[in-house]
């Protein structure tokens, strides 16, 4: 059976993409052989079972590894590396979610990839804007570099409250 598609990409490419992004993520955060082994195991799991929640777990582990570093965003290359990491983690989650719907033999239309790319771009613009704000705060007031994070903490608590209010269904708050 043949479906006439307007430009199609083999799903195998998209099934392999999360694994490559996982390895790229490990390369960006640096670290020793433990990180590389974990990234490799995660990459294998992502290729084997993309429907398993491997990508979110790897994102959390990446964040924890960054947290363990003293000053990940410090130095001249720090902000650029952090910006790349934000992009790669986001792409990893999106591509893994998409790969979970694909079998090895299926095909994906380019228009679908274009739509995915546009939505990633929109969210990335917001995320990178936040990153710019964080870097500006850090450079101007030293916030977020391990000390003087009260402003960020307050903002984060407000954000969590807002997010919770948005996510929790309204029916739960009704009597």
């Amino acid at each position, binding site marked *: *059976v043949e479906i006439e598609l307007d430009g199609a990409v083999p799903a195998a490419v998209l099934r392999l993409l999360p694994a490559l992004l996982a390895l790229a993520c490990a390369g960006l955060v640096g670290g020793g052989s433990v990180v590389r082994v974990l990234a490799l195991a995660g990459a294998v799991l992502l290729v084997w079972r993309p429907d398993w929640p491997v990508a979110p777990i790897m994102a959390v582990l990446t964040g924890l590894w960054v947290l363990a570093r003293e000053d990940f965003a410090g130095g001249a290359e720090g902000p650029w590396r952090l910006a790349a990491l*934000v992009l790669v983690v*986001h792409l990893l989650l*999106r591509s893994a979610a998409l790969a979970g719907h694909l079998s090895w033999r299926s095909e994906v239309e380019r228009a679908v990839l274009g*739509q995915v790319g546009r939505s990633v771009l929109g*969210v990335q613009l917001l995320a990178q804007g936040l990153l710019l704000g964080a870097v500006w705060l850090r450079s101007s007031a030293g916030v977020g570099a391990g000390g003087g*994070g009260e402003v960020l903490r307050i903002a984060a608590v407000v954000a969590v409250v807002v*997010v919770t209010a948005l996510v929790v269904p309204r029916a739960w708050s009704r009597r």
Partner: protein
Amino acid sequence: MSDAFAGAGPQGRPDDWHAYQRGRPDLDAPVDAPRPPAEPWAGGDSLVWTLGAGLVLLVVGALAGRADVAVLGAAPVLGSLWALWARPRGEAWVDVVRTPPVLGEPDRELTAVLRLAAPPGSEAVRLRVGRPGHAATEALVHVPTTRELTVRASSVRTGRQTLFAVDHQGIGRGAVLTGPAARAAGRQVVVLPQPREMPALPLPARLRGLSGQHESRRTGDGGSLRDVHPFQPGDTLRAIDWKVTARRSPQLEQLYVRRTMALAEAVVTLVVDSRDDVGPDPSTWSGMRPTRPDDATSLDLARQAAATIARGYLAVGDRVGVEDLGVLRRALRPGAGRRQLDRVVHQLAVLRPQGAPAVRLRPPRLLTGSLVFVFSTFLDREAADLVQVWARSGHRVVAVDVLPRLRAQGLDARERLALRMVRIEREDRLADVVAAGAELVRWGDPEAATRLQVMARRSHRRPGRAVGR
């Protein structure tokens, strides 16, 4: 659409929602009637895990006062929230409509149009398209509310066929939301046989009627010169040949008239043996294994051969009828004209084996002098016996062997032995058929058309007489 449903689209884009509502096929309600909004799609595990990971990073980064950690979770949280806010309502719909084949071209593939409709907010629709005998194909396609996609599968089969079955599921933004999965079952469609061009066809032993395209042996109007004959009572004055009269009877004691051949039509009966339908692979004859869709079965060949012959005769104004050996009732009475060709082709397309056929006590009744084409595999005696009965009763009979060219590869020793015995018995039957006076054409051979042309040339040499074996 009423005001109550005007904002039913989750995106606040009423145009898209209307297009989706119009594109939903197979609904009982009128197309423009308002329908209640469906339930929004539920978030799955992927959404929970992505949102959870983002929130964990945000909270950990915030509590630790690390903006670089918190900002890592920003994009997943924002993306998940956007997907939740924009989650579609309703479900994706698929309707499968067969594309009619191009007339005159060999029908080597089955094509259909998938009419897709997805609710606004869908990022893609996941499809799995399959049909019996073919491996399923999966694709993730973009559906901007409505869309049409062409699907094709190679198939040389005719008759009742199952169209494509489509499993489909809408996928929301971020690929973290999925709609309800559904299945559009494959419909049954009738694939008509495509007749081929046949330059010439044989004529029956006797022509019938007083009109048609063939010259009979009788005297009449319309044909070419038969002879010059003395005038008799009943001859028209316009038929008097004055030159011949002046030459043979200068004193005008005898008038001479020019007599011409009468025109007549042929009556052709197509007898199709629909009791078995076997492919070229003998290992599929038991029915345990399906026949490949790119293998024409004996009934496919019979349909094509009968349609080709019917088209050839009907094109010159002859009458063609259809008899089915698989049923006791008459399939289609002889008739002429373009619409008769449509009836014949459709009748051939719906022929199929229908369980164990009833025992036939006497052969089907045929019109006197009709030319009989028997399309059969001759794997049993019944068709061969009927051919012999008709040939001995004076009909001109053409036995068309429609057994496909067999593939013996892959058969084990016992299967090969069984096939050899079947072949020997079949050859004996075909020899009996030829010995009884019938003519044999093997439709699977490339020389089938040539053989029919040779038979046609012999019979046209002496109009209305069955000649040439």
